[in-house]
Protein backbone atom coordinates (compact mmCIF):
# COMPACT_ATOMS: atom_id res chain seq x y z
CA UNK A 1 0.00 0.00 0.00
CA UNK A 2 3.02 2.30 -0.03
CA UNK A 3 3.08 2.60 -3.78
CA UNK A 4 -0.41 1.48 -4.91
CA UNK A 5 0.53 -1.93 -6.25
CA UNK A 6 -2.54 -3.88 -7.30
CA UNK A 7 -3.12 -6.35 -10.07
CA UNK A 8 -4.28 -6.64 -13.65
CA UNK A 9 -6.22 -9.57 -15.11
CA UNK A 10 -4.75 -10.23 -18.56
CA UNK A 11 -7.79 -12.36 -19.46
CA UNK A 12 -10.46 -9.66 -19.10
CA UNK A 13 -8.22 -6.60 -18.91
CA UNK A 14 -9.56 -5.29 -15.59
CA UNK A 15 -7.28 -3.54 -13.09
CA UNK A 16 -7.76 -4.19 -9.37
CA UNK A 17 -6.77 -2.24 -6.33
CA UNK A 18 -6.50 -3.38 -3.58
CA UNK A 19 -5.01 -6.51 -5.19
CA UNK A 20 -7.35 -9.50 -5.35
CA UNK A 21 -6.46 -13.18 -4.99
CA UNK A 22 -9.02 -14.16 -7.66
CA UNK A 23 -10.45 -12.19 -10.59
CA UNK A 24 -14.21 -11.94 -9.80
CA UNK A 25 -15.00 -11.77 -13.55
CA UNK A 26 -12.93 -14.70 -14.84
CA UNK A 27 -12.30 -16.67 -11.63
CA UNK A 28 -10.02 -19.64 -12.37
CA UNK A 29 -9.67 -18.62 -16.03
CA UNK A 30 -8.30 -15.26 -14.96
CA UNK A 31 -4.61 -14.52 -14.98
CA UNK A 32 -3.57 -11.88 -12.48
CA UNK A 33 -0.34 -9.98 -12.83
CA UNK A 34 1.08 -7.45 -10.41
CA UNK A 35 0.51 -3.88 -11.54
CA UNK A 36 1.92 -0.67 -10.17
CA UNK A 37 -0.63 2.10 -10.64
CA UNK A 38 0.55 5.48 -11.89
CA UNK A 39 -1.19 7.13 -8.95
CA UNK A 40 -3.15 9.59 -11.10
CA UNK A 41 -6.89 9.86 -11.07
CA UNK A 42 -9.89 11.98 -10.27
CA UNK A 43 -12.27 12.45 -7.35
CA UNK A 44 -15.31 10.19 -7.80
CA UNK A 45 -17.05 11.38 -4.63
CA UNK A 46 -15.99 12.83 -1.29
CA UNK A 47 -16.98 13.79 2.25
CA UNK A 48 -15.66 16.29 4.76
CA UNK A 49 -15.18 14.40 8.01
CA UNK A 50 -15.97 16.54 11.05
CA UNK A 51 -16.45 13.83 13.67
CA UNK A 52 -13.74 11.23 13.72
CA UNK A 53 -12.36 8.55 16.02
CA UNK A 54 -9.37 9.49 18.23
CA UNK A 55 -6.78 8.39 15.66
CA UNK A 56 -7.96 11.10 13.28
CA UNK A 57 -9.26 13.73 15.68
CA UNK A 58 -6.33 16.09 15.27
CA UNK A 59 -6.91 16.26 11.49
CA UNK A 60 -10.61 17.24 11.64
CA UNK A 61 -12.05 18.60 9.37
CA UNK A 62 -10.42 16.52 6.65
CA UNK A 63 -11.36 15.44 3.13
CA UNK A 64 -11.89 11.75 2.50
CA UNK A 65 -12.63 10.69 -1.05
CA UNK A 66 -13.12 7.85 -3.43
CA UNK A 67 -10.52 8.34 -6.11
CA UNK A 68 -10.99 6.76 -9.52
CA UNK A 69 -7.56 5.84 -10.84
CA UNK A 70 -6.88 6.37 -14.54
CA UNK A 71 -6.47 2.62 -15.07
CA UNK A 72 -10.02 2.06 -13.77
CA UNK A 73 -9.98 0.93 -10.13
CA UNK A 74 -11.30 3.08 -7.28
CA UNK A 75 -9.88 3.45 -3.79
CA UNK A 76 -10.59 5.37 -0.58
CA UNK A 77 -8.06 7.97 0.57
CA UNK A 78 -7.65 11.38 2.11
CA UNK A 79 -7.15 14.44 -0.07
CA UNK A 80 -4.44 16.73 1.31
CA UNK A 81 -2.87 20.04 0.24
CA UNK A 82 -6.40 21.12 -0.62
CA UNK A 83 -8.82 23.50 1.04
CA UNK A 84 -12.05 21.77 2.17
CA UNK A 85 -14.05 24.23 0.07
CA UNK A 86 -11.97 23.59 -3.04
CA UNK A 87 -12.54 19.87 -3.53
CA UNK A 88 -15.05 18.82 -6.19
CA UNK A 89 -16.18 15.74 -8.07
CA UNK A 90 -14.00 15.22 -11.13
CA UNK A 91 -10.98 17.07 -9.70
CA UNK A 92 -7.65 15.64 -10.92
CA UNK A 93 -5.48 14.25 -8.12
CA UNK A 94 -2.19 12.42 -7.73
CA UNK A 95 -0.90 10.12 -5.02
CA UNK A 96 1.56 11.28 -2.39
CA UNK A 97 3.30 9.34 0.37
CA UNK A 98 2.09 10.19 3.88
CA UNK A 99 1.78 8.91 7.43
CA UNK A 100 -1.71 7.42 7.87
CA UNK A 101 -1.97 6.59 11.58
CA UNK A 102 -0.28 5.07 14.61
CA UNK A 103 -1.32 1.86 16.30
CA UNK A 104 -1.59 1.47 20.04
CA UNK A 105 0.56 2.81 22.87
CA UNK A 106 3.71 1.41 21.19
CA UNK A 107 3.04 3.81 18.35
CA UNK A 108 3.63 1.55 15.37
CA UNK A 109 3.41 3.95 12.44
CA UNK A 110 1.42 3.16 9.32
CA UNK A 111 2.49 4.87 6.09
CA UNK A 112 0.58 4.87 2.84
CA UNK A 113 -1.00 7.01 0.16
CA UNK A 114 -3.00 10.19 0.32
CA UNK A 115 -3.87 12.27 -2.75
CA UNK A 116 -3.35 15.92 -3.63
CA UNK A 117 -4.67 18.12 -6.44
CA UNK A 118 -2.42 17.79 -9.50
CA UNK A 119 -2.62 21.53 -10.24
CA UNK A 120 -0.82 22.24 -6.97
CA UNK A 121 2.18 20.37 -8.33
CA UNK A 122 2.16 20.87 -12.07
CA UNK A 123 0.34 24.19 -12.33
CA UNK A 124 -2.36 22.88 -14.67
CA UNK A 125 -5.27 20.43 -14.69
Amino acid at each position, binding site marked *: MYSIVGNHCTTCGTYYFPPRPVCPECRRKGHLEEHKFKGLGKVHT*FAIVRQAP*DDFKRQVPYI*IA*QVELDEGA*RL*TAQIVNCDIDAVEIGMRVRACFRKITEFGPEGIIVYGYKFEPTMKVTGHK
Partner: protein
Amino acid sequence: MTRRVAIVGVGISKFGELWEKNLRDITLEAGMYAIFDSQVSGKDIDAVCIGNMSAGRFTGQEHLGALAVDMGGLGHIPSYSVEAACASGGAAVRQAYMSILSGEHKVMLVLGCEKMSDVSQTEAMNTIGVASDWEWEGLFGATFPALYAFMARRHMHEYGTTEEQLAKVAVKNHANAVHNPWAQFQKAVSLDTVMTSGLLADPIRVLHSSPVSDGAAGLVMCSEDIAKKFTDTPVYIEASTQASDTLALHDRRDICTMDAVVISARDALKEIGATVDDIDVFELHDSFTISEITLTEDIGLCKKGEGGKILDEGLTQIGGKYPVNTSGGLKARGHPIGATGVAQVVELVLQLRGDAEKRQVDGAEKAMAVNIGGTGATSIVHVLGR
Protein backbone atom coordinates in the same frame (compact mmCIF):
# COMPACT_ATOMS: atom_id res chain seq x y z
CA MET B 1 -42.92 -29.85 2.55
CA THR B 2 -44.47 -26.60 3.69
CA ARG B 3 -43.17 -23.51 1.91
CA ARG B 4 -44.19 -21.03 4.57
CA VAL B 5 -43.06 -20.42 8.09
CA ALA B 6 -45.34 -18.73 10.61
CA ILE B 7 -44.58 -15.97 13.07
CA VAL B 8 -46.81 -16.56 16.07
CA GLY B 9 -45.41 -14.12 18.62
CA VAL B 10 -43.53 -10.82 18.66
CA GLY B 11 -41.77 -8.90 21.40
CA ILE B 12 -39.61 -5.83 21.62
CA SER B 13 -37.83 -3.88 24.34
CA LYS B 14 -37.86 -0.12 24.52
CA PHE B 15 -35.13 1.24 22.21
CA GLY B 16 -32.85 3.99 23.46
CA GLU B 17 -30.02 4.61 25.90
CA LEU B 18 -30.94 2.09 28.56
CA TRP B 19 -28.35 2.83 31.24
CA GLU B 20 -30.17 0.88 33.93
CA LYS B 21 -30.27 -2.37 31.96
CA ASN B 22 -27.63 -4.71 30.58
CA LEU B 23 -27.58 -6.85 27.47
CA ARG B 24 -29.12 -9.82 29.28
CA ASP B 25 -32.01 -7.77 30.66
CA ILE B 26 -33.10 -6.31 27.35
CA THR B 27 -32.69 -9.56 25.42
CA LEU B 28 -34.64 -11.51 28.00
CA GLU B 29 -37.34 -8.82 27.99
CA ALA B 30 -37.86 -9.01 24.23
CA GLY B 31 -37.77 -12.81 24.26
CA MET B 32 -40.28 -13.08 27.10
CA TYR B 33 -42.68 -10.65 25.42
CA ALA B 34 -42.53 -12.74 22.25
CA ILE B 35 -43.19 -15.95 24.16
CA PHE B 36 -46.11 -14.44 26.14
CA ASP B 37 -47.53 -12.99 22.94
CA SER B 38 -47.63 -16.42 21.30
CA GLN B 39 -48.93 -18.58 24.15
CA VAL B 40 -46.05 -20.95 23.40
CA SER B 41 -44.70 -22.72 26.45
CA GLY B 42 -40.95 -22.98 27.01
CA LYS B 43 -40.92 -26.72 26.38
CA ASP B 44 -42.37 -26.22 22.88
CA ILE B 45 -39.34 -24.22 21.81
CA ASP B 46 -36.73 -26.52 20.31
CA ALA B 47 -34.03 -24.02 19.26
CA VAL B 48 -32.94 -20.40 19.64
CA CYS B 49 -31.33 -18.17 17.03
CA ILE B 50 -29.83 -14.82 18.01
CA GLY B 51 -28.59 -12.00 15.79
CA ASN B 52 -25.90 -9.68 17.08
CA MET B 53 -23.07 -7.76 15.50
CA SER B 54 -20.47 -7.15 18.14
CA ALA B 55 -21.44 -7.76 21.76
CA GLY B 56 -17.84 -8.82 22.34
CA ARG B 57 -16.62 -5.30 21.63
CA PHE B 58 -19.61 -3.33 22.91
CA THR B 59 -20.15 -5.24 26.16
CA GLY B 60 -17.37 -7.82 26.49
CA GLN B 61 -19.75 -10.77 26.13
CA GLU B 62 -19.94 -13.29 23.30
CA HIS B 63 -21.49 -16.77 23.08
CA LEU B 64 -24.93 -15.15 23.12
CA GLY B 65 -26.79 -18.25 21.93
CA ALA B 66 -25.97 -20.16 25.09
CA LEU B 67 -26.60 -17.04 27.16
CA ALA B 68 -30.12 -16.65 25.73
CA VAL B 69 -31.02 -20.31 26.29
CA ASP B 70 -29.62 -20.10 29.82
CA MET B 71 -31.36 -16.85 30.81
CA GLY B 72 -34.62 -18.01 29.27
CA GLY B 73 -34.46 -21.23 31.29
CA LEU B 74 -34.94 -23.23 28.11
CA GLY B 75 -32.89 -26.26 29.08
CA HIS B 76 -30.49 -28.01 26.71
CA ILE B 77 -31.86 -26.95 23.32
CA PRO B 78 -29.42 -25.88 20.58
CA SER B 79 -28.75 -22.22 19.87
CA TYR B 80 -27.21 -20.34 16.96
CA SER B 81 -25.57 -16.91 16.94
CA VAL B 82 -25.42 -15.18 13.58
CA GLU B 83 -23.53 -12.09 12.50
CA ALA B 84 -23.91 -10.06 9.30
CA ALA B 85 -23.09 -6.56 10.57
CA CYS B 86 -26.24 -4.39 10.54
CA ALA B 87 -28.11 -7.26 8.85
CA SER B 88 -27.48 -9.65 11.77
CA GLY B 89 -31.13 -9.49 12.86
CA GLY B 90 -32.41 -10.27 9.38
CA ALA B 91 -29.87 -13.09 9.19
CA ALA B 92 -31.23 -14.57 12.43
CA VAL B 93 -34.79 -14.53 11.06
CA ARG B 94 -33.59 -16.17 7.85
CA GLN B 95 -31.56 -18.78 9.74
CA ALA B 96 -34.66 -19.77 11.73
CA TYR B 97 -36.78 -19.73 8.57
CA MET B 98 -34.40 -22.18 6.89
CA SER B 99 -34.11 -24.38 9.97
CA ILE B 100 -37.90 -24.71 10.23
CA LEU B 101 -38.36 -25.25 6.48
CA SER B 102 -35.75 -27.98 6.57
CA GLY B 103 -37.75 -29.81 9.21
CA GLU B 104 -34.87 -29.80 11.68
CA HIS B 105 -36.71 -27.52 14.12
CA LYS B 106 -40.42 -26.94 14.68
CA VAL B 107 -40.68 -23.94 17.03
CA MET B 108 -37.90 -21.40 17.38
CA LEU B 109 -37.27 -18.29 19.39
CA VAL B 110 -35.50 -15.64 17.29
CA LEU B 111 -33.75 -12.77 19.00
CA GLY B 112 -31.79 -9.72 17.90
CA CYS B 113 -29.94 -7.51 20.35
CA GLU B 114 -27.24 -4.88 20.77
CA LYS B 115 -26.12 -2.74 23.71
CA MET B 116 -24.13 0.10 22.20
CA SER B 117 -24.20 2.93 24.70
CA ASP B 118 -21.78 1.50 27.26
CA VAL B 119 -18.62 2.38 25.30
CA SER B 120 -17.03 5.71 24.38
CA GLN B 121 -17.92 7.42 21.14
CA THR B 122 -14.55 6.49 19.64
CA GLU B 123 -14.94 2.85 20.58
CA ALA B 124 -18.49 2.85 19.16
CA MET B 125 -17.29 4.44 15.90
CA ASN B 126 -14.44 1.96 15.58
CA THR B 127 -16.72 -0.99 16.32
CA ILE B 128 -19.35 0.12 13.78
CA GLY B 129 -16.55 0.86 11.31
CA VAL B 130 -15.55 -2.80 11.06
CA ALA B 131 -18.80 -3.44 9.16
CA SER B 132 -17.11 -1.75 6.20
CA ASP B 133 -13.77 -2.83 4.72
CA TRP B 134 -11.62 -1.87 7.70
CA GLU B 135 -8.25 -2.42 6.04
CA TRP B 136 -8.96 -0.37 2.92
CA GLU B 137 -11.57 2.18 4.10
CA GLY B 138 -11.58 2.68 7.88
CA LEU B 139 -7.80 2.65 8.26
CA PHE B 140 -7.55 5.62 5.87
CA GLY B 141 -9.99 7.70 7.90
CA ALA B 142 -13.31 6.85 6.23
CA THR B 143 -15.89 6.82 9.03
CA PHE B 144 -19.27 5.18 8.51
CA PRO B 145 -21.07 8.50 8.00
CA ALA B 146 -18.35 9.39 5.46
CA LEU B 147 -19.08 6.25 3.42
CA TYR B 148 -22.78 7.12 3.30
CA ALA B 149 -21.79 10.71 2.50
CA PHE B 150 -19.96 9.28 -0.54
CA MET B 151 -23.25 7.81 -1.75
CA ALA B 152 -25.22 10.96 -0.93
CA ARG B 153 -22.75 13.26 -2.71
CA ARG B 154 -22.68 11.08 -5.81
CA HIS B 155 -26.49 10.70 -5.80
CA MET B 156 -26.82 14.49 -5.66
CA HIS B 157 -24.28 14.84 -8.46
CA GLU B 158 -25.87 12.31 -10.80
CA TYR B 159 -29.58 12.77 -10.10
CA GLY B 160 -29.94 16.21 -8.59
CA THR B 161 -31.11 14.89 -5.21
CA THR B 162 -31.19 17.78 -2.75
CA GLU B 163 -30.22 18.24 0.88
CA GLU B 164 -33.85 19.05 1.55
CA GLN B 165 -34.90 15.66 0.21
CA LEU B 166 -32.37 13.92 2.45
CA ALA B 167 -33.77 15.84 5.41
CA LYS B 168 -37.36 14.93 4.51
CA VAL B 169 -36.60 11.25 5.19
CA ALA B 170 -35.75 12.15 8.78
CA VAL B 171 -38.80 14.38 9.16
CA LYS B 172 -41.12 11.63 7.89
CA ASN B 173 -39.63 8.88 10.03
CA HIS B 174 -39.60 10.99 13.19
CA ALA B 175 -43.28 11.86 12.57
CA ASN B 176 -44.06 8.11 12.38
CA ALA B 177 -42.08 7.35 15.54
CA VAL B 178 -44.26 9.71 17.58
CA HIS B 179 -46.86 6.93 17.56
CA ASN B 180 -44.43 4.09 18.34
CA PRO B 181 -44.18 3.51 22.10
CA TRP B 182 -40.91 1.54 21.73
CA ALA B 183 -39.14 4.17 19.62
CA GLN B 184 -36.01 5.89 20.88
CA PHE B 185 -37.24 9.30 19.70
CA GLN B 186 -41.02 9.72 20.01
CA LYS B 187 -40.53 13.22 18.82
CA ALA B 188 -41.23 15.04 15.58
CA VAL B 189 -38.51 17.21 14.04
CA SER B 190 -38.90 20.08 11.60
CA LEU B 191 -37.19 20.31 8.25
CA ASP B 192 -35.26 23.29 9.49
CA THR B 193 -34.00 21.43 12.58
CA VAL B 194 -32.69 18.59 10.42
CA MET B 195 -31.10 20.91 7.86
CA THR B 196 -29.24 22.93 10.47
CA SER B 197 -28.15 20.04 12.70
CA GLY B 198 -24.41 19.45 13.15
CA LEU B 199 -22.37 17.99 10.31
CA LEU B 200 -20.84 14.53 10.80
CA ALA B 201 -19.36 14.15 7.33
CA ASP B 202 -20.72 16.63 4.77
CA PRO B 203 -23.38 16.31 3.46
CA ILE B 204 -24.42 13.87 6.23
CA ARG B 205 -25.69 15.61 9.37
CA VAL B 206 -26.43 14.26 12.85
CA LEU B 207 -30.15 14.13 12.06
CA HIS B 208 -29.49 12.22 8.82
CA SER B 209 -27.98 9.44 10.88
CA SER B 210 -29.50 6.69 12.99
CA PRO B 211 -28.54 6.95 16.67
CA VAL B 212 -26.44 4.78 18.96
CA SER B 213 -29.06 2.61 20.65
CA ASP B 214 -29.65 -0.23 23.07
CA GLY B 215 -32.46 -2.62 22.37
CA ALA B 216 -33.66 -6.10 21.55
CA ALA B 217 -36.47 -7.69 19.59
CA GLY B 218 -37.84 -11.22 19.46
CA LEU B 219 -40.08 -13.51 17.41
CA VAL B 220 -41.54 -16.95 17.94
CA MET B 221 -41.55 -18.81 14.64
CA CYS B 222 -42.92 -22.24 13.79
CA SER B 223 -43.93 -24.42 10.88
CA GLU B 224 -47.18 -23.48 9.16
CA ASP B 225 -49.07 -26.65 10.10
CA ILE B 226 -48.90 -26.04 13.85
CA ALA B 227 -49.22 -22.23 13.87
CA LYS B 228 -52.92 -22.14 14.75
CA LYS B 229 -52.13 -24.05 17.95
CA PHE B 230 -50.37 -20.96 19.29
CA THR B 231 -52.32 -18.01 17.90
CA ASP B 232 -55.42 -17.14 15.89
CA THR B 233 -53.51 -14.52 13.91
CA PRO B 234 -50.33 -16.03 12.52
CA VAL B 235 -48.34 -14.02 10.01
CA TYR B 236 -46.42 -15.98 7.39
CA ILE B 237 -42.98 -15.50 5.91
CA GLU B 238 -43.73 -15.93 2.23
CA ALA B 239 -40.23 -15.25 0.95
CA SER B 240 -36.78 -14.91 2.46
CA THR B 241 -33.85 -13.99 0.23
CA GLN B 242 -30.29 -12.83 0.67
CA ALA B 243 -27.53 -11.44 -1.56
CA SER B 244 -23.99 -10.10 -1.15
CA ASP B 245 -21.89 -7.40 -2.75
CA THR B 246 -18.31 -6.16 -2.42
CA LEU B 247 -17.35 -5.30 1.14
CA ALA B 248 -15.72 -2.02 0.16
CA LEU B 249 -17.89 0.69 -1.30
CA HIS B 250 -15.17 1.72 -3.79
CA ASP B 251 -15.37 -1.70 -5.50
CA ARG B 252 -19.05 -1.34 -6.44
CA ARG B 253 -20.24 -1.12 -10.01
CA ASP B 254 -22.24 1.97 -9.02
CA ILE B 255 -22.16 3.39 -5.50
CA CYS B 256 -25.67 4.86 -5.87
CA THR B 257 -27.19 1.38 -6.37
CA MET B 258 -27.04 -1.48 -3.91
CA ASP B 259 -26.95 -4.46 -6.27
CA ALA B 260 -27.43 -6.88 -3.36
CA VAL B 261 -30.73 -5.14 -2.56
CA VAL B 262 -31.83 -5.12 -6.21
CA ILE B 263 -31.15 -8.86 -6.50
CA SER B 264 -32.61 -9.98 -3.16
CA ALA B 265 -35.77 -7.85 -3.56
CA ARG B 266 -36.31 -9.06 -7.12
CA ASP B 267 -35.80 -12.70 -6.07
CA ALA B 268 -38.25 -12.34 -3.17
CA LEU B 269 -40.99 -10.93 -5.39
CA LYS B 270 -40.32 -13.60 -8.01
CA GLU B 271 -40.60 -16.32 -5.40
CA ILE B 272 -44.17 -15.31 -4.58
CA GLY B 273 -45.11 -14.21 -8.10
CA ALA B 274 -45.87 -10.65 -7.03
CA THR B 275 -44.78 -7.15 -7.96
CA VAL B 276 -43.76 -4.40 -5.61
CA ASP B 277 -47.22 -2.84 -6.11
CA ASP B 278 -48.70 -5.83 -4.27
CA ILE B 279 -46.84 -4.86 -1.09
CA ASP B 280 -48.76 -2.62 1.31
CA VAL B 281 -46.11 -1.58 3.82
CA PHE B 282 -42.30 -1.50 3.93
CA GLU B 283 -39.54 -1.35 6.52
CA LEU B 284 -36.40 -0.21 4.68
CA HIS B 285 -32.96 0.09 6.26
CA ASP B 286 -32.55 3.85 6.78
CA SER B 287 -29.32 3.85 8.79
CA PHE B 288 -28.69 7.16 7.01
CA THR B 289 -31.34 9.14 5.15
CA ILE B 290 -29.61 8.51 1.81
CA SER B 291 -30.01 4.75 2.27
CA GLU B 292 -33.82 5.03 2.44
CA ILE B 293 -33.73 7.01 -0.80
CA THR B 294 -31.52 4.48 -2.62
CA LEU B 295 -33.48 1.53 -1.22
CA THR B 296 -36.82 2.87 -2.48
CA GLU B 297 -35.20 2.98 -5.92
CA ASP B 298 -33.46 -0.39 -5.62
CA ILE B 299 -36.59 -2.35 -4.65
CA GLY B 300 -38.50 -0.73 -7.50
CA LEU B 301 -40.81 1.84 -5.90
CA CYS B 302 -39.52 4.30 -8.49
CA LYS B 303 -36.87 4.66 -11.17
CA LYS B 304 -33.21 5.19 -10.30
CA GLY B 305 -32.70 8.77 -9.23
CA GLU B 306 -36.32 9.44 -8.29
CA GLY B 307 -36.11 8.43 -4.63
CA GLY B 308 -36.14 12.08 -3.62
CA LYS B 309 -39.08 12.85 -5.87
CA ILE B 310 -41.42 10.19 -4.48
CA LEU B 311 -40.62 11.54 -1.03
CA ASP B 312 -41.63 15.04 -2.14
CA GLU B 313 -44.87 13.59 -3.49
CA GLY B 314 -45.63 11.94 -0.14
CA LEU B 315 -45.80 8.43 -1.61
CA THR B 316 -43.79 6.93 1.25
CA GLN B 317 -45.81 8.47 4.09
CA ILE B 318 -48.44 6.57 6.04
CA GLY B 319 -51.50 7.00 3.84
CA GLY B 320 -49.33 7.20 0.70
CA LYS B 321 -49.10 4.53 -1.99
CA TYR B 322 -45.96 2.94 -0.47
CA PRO B 323 -45.74 3.58 3.29
CA VAL B 324 -42.09 3.21 4.35
CA ASN B 325 -40.84 2.89 7.93
CA THR B 326 -44.08 3.28 9.82
CA SER B 327 -42.16 2.35 12.98
CA GLY B 328 -39.93 5.41 12.64
CA GLY B 329 -37.25 3.34 10.96
CA LEU B 330 -33.68 3.10 12.18
CA LYS B 331 -33.57 6.87 12.18
CA ALA B 332 -36.16 7.44 14.91
CA ARG B 333 -37.04 4.04 16.36
CA GLY B 334 -33.33 3.54 16.96
CA HIS B 335 -30.67 1.22 15.53
CA PRO B 336 -29.31 -1.28 18.05
CA ILE B 337 -27.44 -3.00 15.23
CA GLY B 338 -28.19 -6.70 15.84
CA ALA B 339 -31.80 -6.00 16.87
CA THR B 340 -32.80 -3.93 13.85
CA GLY B 341 -33.59 -6.71 11.38
CA VAL B 342 -35.81 -8.46 13.93
CA ALA B 343 -37.47 -5.17 14.97
CA GLN B 344 -38.39 -4.50 11.32
CA VAL B 345 -40.23 -7.83 11.22
CA VAL B 346 -41.92 -7.11 14.58
CA GLU B 347 -43.32 -3.85 13.17
CA LEU B 348 -44.58 -5.53 10.02
CA VAL B 349 -46.25 -8.35 11.96
CA LEU B 350 -48.09 -5.71 14.02
CA GLN B 351 -49.12 -3.98 10.79
CA LEU B 352 -50.43 -7.19 9.22
CA ARG B 353 -52.34 -8.15 12.34
CA GLY B 354 -53.88 -4.67 12.49
CA ASP B 355 -52.22 -3.99 15.85
CA ALA B 356 -50.14 -0.95 14.86
CA GLU B 357 -52.61 1.53 16.36
CA LYS B 358 -51.99 5.09 15.18
CA ARG B 359 -49.30 3.93 12.74
CA GLN B 360 -51.67 1.41 11.13
CA VAL B 361 -51.71 1.15 7.35
CA ASP B 362 -55.33 0.32 6.53
CA GLY B 363 -55.91 -3.19 5.30
CA ALA B 364 -52.24 -4.16 5.05
CA GLU B 365 -51.96 -7.71 3.74
CA LYS B 366 -48.39 -7.98 2.46
CA ALA B 367 -45.26 -6.38 3.83
CA MET B 368 -41.56 -6.25 2.98
CA ALA B 369 -38.52 -5.78 5.21
CA VAL B 370 -35.10 -4.93 3.76
CA ASN B 371 -32.19 -5.24 6.17
CA ILE B 372 -28.70 -4.36 4.90
CA GLY B 373 -25.27 -4.90 6.40
CA GLY B 374 -22.40 -2.44 6.17
CA THR B 375 -22.76 -0.18 3.16
CA GLY B 376 -24.88 -2.78 1.39
CA ALA B 377 -22.50 -5.75 1.26
CA THR B 378 -25.29 -7.94 2.67
CA SER B 379 -28.97 -7.55 1.89
CA ILE B 380 -31.70 -9.68 3.44
CA VAL B 381 -35.29 -9.35 2.31
CA HIS B 382 -38.37 -10.86 3.92
CA VAL B 383 -41.88 -10.70 2.51
CA LEU B 384 -44.63 -11.32 5.03
CA GLY B 385 -48.30 -12.02 4.45
CA ARG B 386 -51.42 -12.79 6.41
